[in-house]
């Protein structure tokens, strides 16, 4: 379903060049294809004579790595970087990803030797500043969420979900009340059911109502003594606030279950709303979304989990506690009948203490914005999304079909009704947007509408940027409606590669370079 086909025809109209390069766009082979055997881009001294102690396990066969000089490596990766779209180059309207500007100050702070050149297991007297930073971050997160505790070690959002769901299961086990089901809305992100399955739970989906929110009646019908928790994203993946959330929380708690909230969309409410007042028991946050730590081509992230008092005792190791006038790490669960810190912890979720590099960046971000700035972030995020809503929706002058009428929060959901009978799919539409210089919005998610297009501009887009995007999308929609399907199906034409054959990639996976392999040809 990539729309790839051999029949897409001849390359772009421009005359082919001699090199295959196109101006600033350079064809760049793999490093393995540029090997100068014996060459090295790092000057290292000859090791002094020594009595080897490798125990007859000296590596005999070569590894097979290529040798290149520094200029070649710098050029190689610079050329690769030029084939990437990024926040730094343009609007990145991916729904629920919160592709906001990544401030460079935070890169500088994370690289301070006092943070970067610090081993996690150094004596505690030598790391008090690091513990203070983590404690400060925890304070900001607890204050923003209104929750009394926060677990900082999860390395990403999905990891945070695992953490939250495990504390819930541990809490239920501790009160002798093992339950079996997790309720998850149909619109949920795939990590939610995947996480629930790892915790040994069965997943029971809840339908959305006509307004795109969780159907409260359906939820109540599915609640029972065997439901451990509801996993809810709020604002939800349709960009809408679950306005019946207080009734939802009450119903969940009345059934003896816990309320887990996926905080991926926290950007809509940070600084303006107190999640603790919504009845939430566990809330994961994505530092790489709401708090601007860079996406880095797919990671690293950080997914701390704010916890209610009932779940706090089960938080993963390590804990950072105040003791004897300084900060100290609790790395093992206290044993014995008297208990003590972390006695009931679910255990360790990753090596060492957590994503310190992301903590520094996130705290730098929070301190830069402050209480007033963070409130403005949520307001501008919601404003920008609603502005795009009215510019794009066919009810208010645009050409797209909003799925659930009315105001949205920080992201707006459209579906492919506006493409009906045009021969243009959501995929084709997105690929055409690429040629116009924009990264497409999220497509085909959430699954609750057909051919979904989910747009989240974030607060770091200017009005001019939004106007340009809206104008382009509307003009493309008009072109799709006027029978110009071939242009969409041939898109993109102007990127370093045109549509790629994902079917062939999946049928005959080629996951690494090998010395003797021929270059893959297009499938006939």
């Amino acid at each position: 379903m990539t729309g790839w086909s051999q029949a897409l025809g001849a390359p772009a109209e421009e005359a082919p060049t001699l090199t295959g390069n196109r101006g600033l766009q350079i064809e760049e082979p793999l490093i393995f294809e540029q090997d100068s055997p014996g060459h090295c881009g790092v000057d290292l001294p000859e090791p002094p004579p020594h009595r080897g102690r490798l125990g007859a396990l000296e590596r005999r066969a070569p590894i097979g790595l290529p040798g290149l000089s520094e200029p070649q490596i710098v050029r190689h990766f610079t050329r690769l970087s030029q084939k990437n779209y990024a926040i730094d180059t343009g609007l990145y309207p991916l729904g629920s990803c919160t592709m906001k500007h990544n401030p460079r100050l935070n890169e500088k702070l994370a690289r301070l030797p006092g943070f970067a050149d610090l081993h996690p297991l150094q004596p505690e007297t030598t790391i008090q500043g690091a513990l203070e930073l983590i404690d400060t971050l925890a304070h900001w997160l607890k204050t923003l969420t209104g929750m009394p505790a926060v677990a900082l070690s999860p390395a990403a959002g999905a990891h945070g979900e695992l953490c939250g769901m495990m504390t819930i299961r541990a809490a239920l086990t501790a009160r002798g009340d093992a339950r079996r089901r997790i309720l998850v809305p149909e619109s949920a992100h795939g990590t939610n059911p995947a996480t629930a399955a790892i915790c040994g739970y069965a997943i029971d989906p809840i339908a959305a109502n006509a307004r795109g929110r969780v159907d409260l009646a359906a939820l109540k019908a599915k609640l029972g003594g065997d439901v451990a928790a509801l996993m809810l994203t709020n604002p939800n993946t349709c960009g809408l606030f679950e306005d019946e959330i207080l009734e939802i929380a009450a119903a969940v708690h009345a059934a003896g279950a816990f309320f887990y909230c996926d905080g991926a969309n926290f950007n809509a409410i940070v600084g303006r709303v107190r999640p603790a007042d919504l009845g939430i028991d566990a809330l994961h946050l994505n530092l790489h979304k709401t708090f601007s730590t860079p996406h880095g081509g797919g990671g690293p992230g950080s997914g701390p989990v704010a916890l209610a008092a009932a779940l706090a005792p089960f938080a993963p190791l390590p804990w950072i506690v105040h003791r004897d006038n300084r900060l100290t790490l609790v790395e093992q669960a206290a044993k014995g009948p008297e208990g003590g810190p972390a006695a009931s912890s679910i255990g360790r979720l990753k090596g060492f203490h957590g994503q310190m590099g992301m903590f520094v960046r996130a705290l730098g971000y929070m301190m830069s914005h402050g209480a007033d700035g963070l409130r403005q972030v949520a307001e501008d995020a919601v404003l920008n999304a609603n502005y795009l809503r009215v510019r794009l929706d066919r009810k208010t002058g645009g050409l797209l079909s909003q799925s659930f009428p009315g105001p949205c929060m920080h992201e707006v959901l459209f579906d492919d009704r506006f493409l009906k009978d045009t021969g243009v799919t959501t995929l084709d539409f997105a690929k055409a947007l690429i040629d116009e210089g924009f990264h497409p919005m999220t497509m085909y998610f959430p699954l609750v509408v057909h051919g979904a297009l989910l747009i989240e501009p974030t607060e770091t887009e200017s009005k001019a940027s939004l106007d340009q995007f809206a104008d382009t999308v509307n003009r493309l929609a008009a072109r799709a409606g006027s029978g110009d399907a071939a242009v969409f199906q041939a898109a993109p034409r102007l990127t370093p590669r045109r549509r790629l054959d994902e079917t062939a990639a999946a049928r005959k996976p080629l996951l690494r370079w090998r010395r003797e392999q021929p270059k893959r040809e297009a499938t006939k």
Partner: protein
Amino acid sequence: MPTLRFTEDHEWIRQDGDNAVIGITDYAQQQLGDIVYVELPAPGTRIEAGKEAAIVESAKAASEVYAPVSGEIVAVNGLIAGDPAKVNADPMGEGWFLSVKLDDPTALDGLMDEAAYAVFIAEQG
């Protein structure tokens, strides 16, 4: 004359005496797009009506193939395991999935015939 029947999950089943062959329909393969992988159970495994019997994957989606009837798997189609594109090319013939020994030779009676299935998919829109 082998009996051919269809399910609402877009599987077909063709009976010949006590045995039957199962696959996915042309409608199903169109919906899935290019098929990249199939996961087939081992011969000798039991299948239960309504439960998952196999998995079929396209580049972007994975779908369960549900057992239309209960029985014991006699053979699976190694051809589609090695060349999943066959399911797209010939879903009702070379692209078959499973051959089963039926628990109940009358089990197909409750399923849609070709005409009823044609009406069913027309209503899918």
